[in-house]
């Protein structure tokens, strides 16, 4: 079990399987809210679905539509269950707020390095605590 400590962006608790990228995520033009998928053609997660996952990403990039596209995933039922964001900006902060999912940033170690896609992640955003059970240890 790996633990990371950070700061609350949106309080709350959620757990789920991690979907991790080391590349910034674009909202508008980068995701399809109807399907809950990354659609940016050159993105390493292109085609993958984040619905129900703990989305772990370094930062938000691109259009100011970032937050409303993630808000749309909430309204359409395709949202991630939590967000872990290495470097926060207005786009990702507002995005997490209007997606209304627990979210954490400013972690003591790099979440995009330590968490792997498929790991089971508990996000206690209220206390800024993240616990990771690596996929290799999951039965």
């Amino acid at each position: 079990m790996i633990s990371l400590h950070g700061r609350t962006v949106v309080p709350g608790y959620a757990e789920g399987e991690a979907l991790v990228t080391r590349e910034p995520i674009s909202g508008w033009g980068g995701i399809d809210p109807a399907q809950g998928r990354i659609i940016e053609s050159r993105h390493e997660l292109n085609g993958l679905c984040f619905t129900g996952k703990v989305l772990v990403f370094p930062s938000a990039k691109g259009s100011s539509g970032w937050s409303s596209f993630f808000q749309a995933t909430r309204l359409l039922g395709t949202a991630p269950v939590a967000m872990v964001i290495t470097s926060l900006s207005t786009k990702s902060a507002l995005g997490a707020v209007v997606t209304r999912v627990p979210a954490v940033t400013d972690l003591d170690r790099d979440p995009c390095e330590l968490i792997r896609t498929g790991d089971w992640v508990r996000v206690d955003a209220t206390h800024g605590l993240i616990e990771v059970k690596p996929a290799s240890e999951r039965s």
Partner: protein
Amino acid sequence: MILTDEEKRMRDGAEGAATAAAMDLLIRYGDALACDRLCDVRNVAGTMTQPSPVKQKLVQEGGWERAFAVINLDCDDDIEVPAMRVPTCQLQAGFGPDAQGIVPYPQKSIELQQDAEAFYGARGVSILATCTPYQVGNIPVRGEHCAWMESSAVIYANSVLGARTNCEGTASAGAASLTGKIPCWGNHKDENRFGTHLIDVRTPTRSFLDWGMLGYFAGGVAGEEHPVITGDLARPDLVDLKHFGAAAATSGGVELYHIPGVTPEAPTLEAAFGTAKTPEPVVYGPAQRSLVYRTLNSQGTTTDVDFVLLGCPHASVDQVRRAAKALEGRSLSPGTELWLMLPRALKDVADRSGYTAVIERAGGRLLGDSCPAMSRTAPKGTRVFATDSAKQAHYLPAILGIEAWFGTLEDCVDAAVTGRWRGDLR
């Protein structure tokens, strides 16, 4: 978050339920940013009128009041939408009535947007309907705190005008319009406005194409931070910096850059970095320029072009004039369409100046309010498009699943006339 007495009164409902919801959103947003106070803004550029499937459903359920509550305030309650507290404008949106019969875009969406414009106009939202409010009269002064959306407008306001805005979203801009407040974070503070990366340009950067490619490179280098650009640069104009900024905000998340001797907060290279040491430069030479060109042109394999898109960000009058000049006396290939996007207010100028007539005689179209990426709409059957915009070349293939070519205005017009892409980096 520390609130003033005025802000507490708003939060507690003294100005009505909508303003209280707006203040609640600003507090949640400010807390998310670990920001301790709000600052006053009286210039908001947001989006309220653009149709979307989600918005259409909300309007059916509870009218524009419901749509504004959910989308612009992140509020689930039934509220009445009052007049905007501070000057607020609508940015680019969906296509308008001028697109009817030309653009394969639902009539229902055009009507929904017109309905929205009446609703929001009556509440004091100016319908500029452009991604370039600074081209049609909304030009904040240096140091002015704003709450703007639209990454290409935000980077222009911060860098070229020296105004102060973060890249706001739909809900934070909506909340700002009802309160005149926004978290005092990031670009609003002096200490956060200095350069972080130095880019040394060692290849002549002269043209609109050059500036767009340099911007695309700068965004890749600086990410969300602040590139400072020096070197072999011709003095840019509004159009060059419009393209540069849009590209830098697309490939990275740049909201502020400095060009010493050109942009207002960087009279010198040293001033651009403030008290920090000037970093080692990242070189942008012929090899880097060539790589950017190849990257932007890596999304096309078929050289048959069915669609040419100009005016991203929305064209200036001078860009329309240049497009008219390039199209004078020529005709588009039968299988190719050409759209030039611009603010409707400038379309009026283009009409009076005769540019519209020249472009339409050649078979091209001038369209206001929107763009193919915003409205997710291209001519029917488009498989391959060409554009002079790095931003549109980046986004449209993902949004519409089409191939892209990127080049100069002349290359694009040549493609529109011949139906073939023959552009190259010269």
